[in-house]
């Protein structure tokens, strides 16, 4: 049982395709280490290499049901990144996504937000029309400083790219932390003496 370097949380209403998105990413042969098994379908860790280094992404699936909304805070605590999903064909899910984002902003300032419109294939195939205008979403995401991506778990469109982007973005702050930890180390030495005495 080893920890993951980055915690990525999937948020969004029921049936927007959070689990599918994760499954698509994890079970895709691409970059998947053979012994990296999926444990259930709710949590998965995946090794990603970015900028010549290897990192483990711990991806947390969450229950999107309204009745568990109150507990979502527990999930995204300490998350490095959050993928807020909404169904491109369902207007309601986008409104819910906005709620998640405001909450995230309030509680986890350091958490990067990735807005993700799912089921792109349904829109592309013309089965259902997009319920949310692309420009509006783009505008909104810019306003909150989030990245916006449209994905399709069915075709795999943009799925790997989304997670790769997250991995790339997560590396920089971590190097900063490393510097901090070194500082801590030096200061700790003195405190440890106190402990020992």
């Amino acid at each position, binding site marked *: 049982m080893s920890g993951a370097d980055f915690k990525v949380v999937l948020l969004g209403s029921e049936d927007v395709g959070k689990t599918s998105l994760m499954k698509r990413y994890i079970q895709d042969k691409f970059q998947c280490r053979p012994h990296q098994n999926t*444990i259930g379908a709710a949590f998965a860790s995946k090794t990603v290499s970015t900028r010549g280094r290897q990192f483990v992404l711990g991806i947390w*699936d969450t229950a999107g049901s309204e009745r568990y909304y109150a507990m979502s805070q527990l999930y995204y605590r300490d998350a490095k990144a959050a993928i807020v999903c909404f169904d491109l064909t369902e207007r309601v899910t986008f409104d819910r996504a906005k709620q998640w984002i405001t909450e995230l902003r309030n509680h986890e300032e350091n958490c990067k937000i990735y807005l993700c419109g799912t089921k792109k294939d349904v829109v592309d195939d013309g089965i259902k029309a997009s319920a949310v205008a692309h420009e509006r979403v783009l505008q909104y995401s810019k306003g909150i400083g989030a990245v916006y991506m449209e994905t399709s778990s069915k075709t795999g469109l943009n799925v790997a790219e989304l997670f790769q982007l997250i991995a790339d973005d997560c590396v920089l702050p971590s190097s900063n932390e490393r510097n901090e930890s070194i500082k801590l180390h030096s200061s700790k030495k003195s405190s440890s003496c106190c402990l020992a005495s």
Partner: protein
Amino acid sequence: MNPPLKVTSKPKMFTKKSPALRIDEADLKCKSKSGCDFFGNPEWDGYCSHCYRKERERQHNDQKKSPNRGESGSRASADSPLSLSVAKRFNKFEEKKQQQRQQQEKRNKFSKLASSLRKSTSIRETGRLPEPWLEQSPEVERIKQDYASHLASLSPEVRQLINKYIQGLCRTVCADANNMSIDELSEKVQKFYQILAQCMDAHNVNQELKESVLDYCEKFTMTVLHRNLFCPPTTTDEEKDLAIQKRIRQLNWVNAKHLDCCINETSEEVRDLVYTSLTDLLGMDSEKAPQDKLQAVVKCCRNIFLLLQSSVGGPASADEFLPALIFIVLKANPARLKSNINFVTRFCNASRLMTGEGGYYFTNLCCAVSFIENMTAQSLNLPELEFEQYMSGEVVPTSTWDSALMMYEGISLMYEHIAALDDMHKRADSVLEGTELLQNTMKKFVIEMKLNVEDILARTQITFNSEKVPTDIDTENPLSELLPPPIAPQVVMSGPQKMQSTLAYGKESLNLPGITKYAFPSDSELDALGTDSTPVDGVVTLPMSDSQEFLLTPSSTYGFSSLDELATPDELCAAQASLNFVQGLSAVNYEIDISDTCSDSSAGMSPHPPSVPMPEQKDSNSCLPEETGPASLLDTSESPTSKLLPSPIKPVVPGPGGDSGEGSSPTVMNTTAEDTDEVSQQKPLEPTANVSSITSSSEYQGFTAQGWKIQSIPCDTGPSDLKSTKRTKGNATL
């Protein structure tokens, strides 16, 4: 000053300040008089953490009583009538938990007492620090052993450093456990983890070893300090434990359907997995180190995923997992749930364990607990009234998990028994079949053995007798010498002519009801008696009188094989056919030949010899007569076709007729009752007769002459014959 009072009274003051619906920010601020700008917390009596600590220290100095608060109050609430009534419906898991909890309570009380005692002594004898980490329990020893190899591979310098850190932590925690707030302690421990990690990084310990050493440090310190850090008296953990326990007990009626949880309760496999995940979750309390507790949660959650997999038919997602976990928590009602959760969150090496799988499941567990705490009618999609009724225990849902479980247990037990019964049925059937088979084979075997024995007896009998007989023959030979020698020549001439007449006669005799087939030869004899010459008669009678012994003598001399062979019906038939053929075709002349040949081969030719004195005919008859002799007689006894047979006999038989024609007939009639006896008698008789006749005819006439005298003997030996016939009869049936 009573501590419980303090707890309850201060929040009251805190709330009294804000009677209005809207709460001022000032009300939320720390209520310290020093004007602290931090927010207060009801858990800290409305102080911020800093001021709360100060306040506590001040109080501590004021009164040195052990902070044993809230005990009696919580106990009272636990024993409320409702909880008792609920308690009656506990299933075994809950009973187990109850016991656990009671034990734990006792232990808690004990440890509190002990800690207060220890403190008082430590206060009295200042300077001598209690060092509980030195009184090592077997658990600690085990941990040391488990990680001995890992520690050994560390450089001594690092090992020393680590030991120093561990000791330092243990000492400070033990000393300050009751003075520090739990958060400060937690912070200290987390710092300790960080220091250890950095220390190892600084000494270039490789990653794997670092992990295991960190594991060891965490396990060791937490096991040693478990008593001080787990559910410490400075926190309200225990009350929360009892509150959540009571809450879960109240929610006893909640089932999988209420939670929209897709657990397939009817499947045995799923039920087993539910049980295992329940026990896994319950096992969390018995572990001491936080990572072990975490591991118990992970195990439980993995089992939940497994059971969801078999219920849903595919990998489950978080939307299915969380309700299932809530369900499991509700059914398990683990002891000291809150304390355990708090202990893990406070003292687990957060940076290592909380980001991975364990962290995920633990977070889910926290979610489940928080959901249970805040469960309302809405969250279960139930009408408010119904929810209230269930909660107050007024109404009990019919399909509660407990009753279902009980039913399933009963049913599964029934199925098991049925299966066992079926198995036993099958086995019994197979046993019965086996016995039947065995019986049949035994029967068969017995029959076979009987037949075999009879067969063998029949054969061996002959041989036995044969051995005995020779001497008899010699003794009797002189008698047979008295028989009239002239038989042969006379019969030859008359034989064919009278055959037909005798045939007709024989047929009539056969038809007679009282008389059996066998009477027939005797009749022929009678005829012969009347018509033919006396000497022939003498020859025939001779064998009859001899009984078996006599019969055998010839066979011994001329070869048993022929006799035995004759016994088989096939041969007899063949013999009969050949005889018929011979009879039909040939004149008596052929038969005469036999006499010569029979000396070579066997006694088979018997019937004819009496008529055969002629030496010329050897060639033609040689093969035929051998078997015909006895066969013909046998056939007559057994089949109607044998009617034809008498013809050859006639020549033989007629001879004796002259002597005791009427005298012998009565005997025959008598014996007819035991016709079969006669058959057997005669069958063997004939060959002997032949032999005697042959010998007499070919070699010397004195023999035949003797035979004539023997005629009287058969009548006497009648009874002895019976036995022999019976045996032969058995043979025939074979």
